């Protein structure tokens, strides 16, 4: 087992599934790259290089460069999925999803239900999300609450390279449309990732730490931050459970509630905007179902409800930090009625 980056882990998952199943295809803007420039094949592999190397192995018939028209190629991918292929479509930034929303929430997400269960739509839409890339408010949003809100879609937020490979393999083998969100500042994160193919089931949260003082529920990139905060707090005798739900739809309510009940003190960390977000959703879930076990109010650590700022100092202040998580946990741990 070798150390692999988040980027390599994703690439390996897609390549292994393409080898295993000839119906798996890849499409998106510059997924190969260099079109029209003689001598430049496989120039890009997508804007951050995740699909690099796929075209030379699988050819242009299975690795398609598309025009910059999300509404066209996401619609094509949904149709291809409904008629027998397993497309993995890359929609560069989640921020651009707006132009093809009908294709996602009203078409791909509803085929199974509109055709009485006779149609399946094994579509994966890969997309980048999140702040920290100095890319301003149109290229830095999280937006997964919008897809989580839409029944018929599955929504995946891998928090590390190991998670990314197993969840991507599962996404490709899944018969429903999956929105697969990759945090753009995590592509070079590394950890041990098996060479063999493996799947991580959807709707099953992971516990990255186990403690008895406070439960931290964190999503995507925030899982790593929560772990760092937990490690610091452990030194002061505050031991935390860290829950990574892995998928926001389906959501592993059982594990979240069990962990909330065990400690009675909960902090939810989410990088998405706070209104109608996962933090509020999970806090409400706990408030409604685990109220009797709570020893303190559920605390949410989120950005303020503003567009992501462009000024680096402001952007850094915007994203939930390890220090903010730590402070929230201390607050909750020390709370008494």
């Amino acid at each position, binding site marked *: 087992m070798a150390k692999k980056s988040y980027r390599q882990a994703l690439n390996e998952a897609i390549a292994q599934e393409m080898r295993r199943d000839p119906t798996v295809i890849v499409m998106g803007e510059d997924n190969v790259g260099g079109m029209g420039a003689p001598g430049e094949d496989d120039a890009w592999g997508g804007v951050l290089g995740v699909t690099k190397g796929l075209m030379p192995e699988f050819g242009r018939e299975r690795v398609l460069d598309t025009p910059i028209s999300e509404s066209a190629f996401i619609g094509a991918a949904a149709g291809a999925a409904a008629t027998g292929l397993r497309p993995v479509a890359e929609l560069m930034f989640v921020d651009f999803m707006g132009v093809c929303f009908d294709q996602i929430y009203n078409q791909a997400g509803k085929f199974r239900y509109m055709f009485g269960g006779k149609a399946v739509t094994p579509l994966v839409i890969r997309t980048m999300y999140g702040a920290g890339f100095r890319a301003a408010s149109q290229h830095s949003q999280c937006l997964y609450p919008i897809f989580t809100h839409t029944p018929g879609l599955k929504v995946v937020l891998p928090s590390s390279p190991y998670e990314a490979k197993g969840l991507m393999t599962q996404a490709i083998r899944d018969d429903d449309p999956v929105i697969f969100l990759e945090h753009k500042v995590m592509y070079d994160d590394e950890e041990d990732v098996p060479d063999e*193919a493996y799947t991580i089931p959807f709707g099953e949260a992971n*516990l990255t730490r186990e403690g008895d003082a406070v439960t931290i529920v964190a999503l995507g990139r925030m899982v790593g931050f929560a772990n760092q905060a937990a490690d610091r707090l452990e030194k002061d005798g505050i031991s935390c459970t860290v829950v990574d739900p892995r998928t926001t739809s389906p959501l592993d309510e059982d594990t979240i509630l069990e962990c909330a009940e065990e400690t009675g003190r909960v902090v939810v960390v989410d990088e998405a905007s706070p209104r109608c977000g996962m933090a509020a959703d999970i806090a409400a879930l706990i408030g409604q179902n685990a109220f009797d076990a709570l020893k303190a109010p559920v605390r949410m650590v989120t950005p303020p409800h503003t567009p992501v700022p462009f000024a680096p100092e402001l952007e850094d202040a915007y994203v939930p930090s390890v220090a903010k998580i730590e402070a929230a946990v201390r607050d909750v741990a020390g709370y008494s009625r």
Partner: protein
Amino acid sequence: MSQPIQAITMPKWGLAMEEGMVVDWLAEEGSSVEAGQDILEIETTKITNVYEAPAAGTLRRRIVAEGETVPVGALLGLLADPAVADSEIDAFVERFNADFSVKAAEAEAASPKPETVVAGDVSINYLRMGSEGGTPLVLVHGFGGDLNNWLFNQPALAEKHDVVALDLPGHGRSGKEVGRGDAASLTRVLGDFLDAVGIERAHLVGHSLGGAVALLFAMQNPARVAGLTLIAPAGLGPEIDIDFVEGFIAAGRRKEMRDVLAHLVADPELISRDMINDVLKYKRLDGVDRALRRLADSLFPSGRQASLDLDDLAKVSAPIQVIWGAEDRILPASQADSLPERIEVRRLQGVGHMPHMEAAAEVNRLIEAALG
């Protein structure tokens, strides 16, 4: 002329261990200890275990306090004769710590890494460590296990011997093709593996399913076996905790797996979060479910064990010892009763199905003793 000072350092239990925490000192400063006496309890993210004095002497200094976490190789304490002056001890500590970062880096670079070899038609992952020469020791894990099950045994035994631990087909990082999935096909792979790594004759240590494989190999190839240590070996009687086998195959979630793994040990506290995670990671690999199903169907048809034919046991002239946990819930220790009297059976009290983890020091001593 200064007296020798013996350093007690943080052991490396398993490939992934980088640091450990001193939970408890079991010997007082100034007390004299025997070689092999439990002097420390050490906790890693995977497991808690006792650490034995590497030599006899007086525990002159405890360097690391209870509750402190330090990297592998760090100085935990010192043994020396009471005649050794305090100043010498101080100088030793200073020298050790000055050299430590360099030594740790060198040790990391030199630490053995798993390798793969093709045995017959399946790729086998194995870890070889220890000194060249002498009859090698080969460690064979049980159903659902892997070479990391020997984390407390392989490094200790490797101090004096050439020790090889392998992942059986369908397990760990070996290929997931298990053929017919019976003891005979696994035994064939063991033979192919020994050929592939150039081991003509070995002392075999097998646990559970690995015990059945080692025993069958010895009966088929008596000349290739210098000795046998069978730890809670399979194949000696029909009874088996089939709920464990089926539960292990079915479990996909942490909680389920924790309950299943608790069957293995007398004290369920031994089953750590990391251990459960490692098993779940293994079970997610493509082909593992099918491999385990195949093995279970061949080895434990209708929930009973397929027993080994022991007619050829007389051909094995090499010494055989059997170690069994008295509280084994997977395979009852009474199954050893069917063995001929010449085979020594040691039942360990307060121990379940994993003596080599639950009572590692005792098992290591028994293996060492058998090696002469």
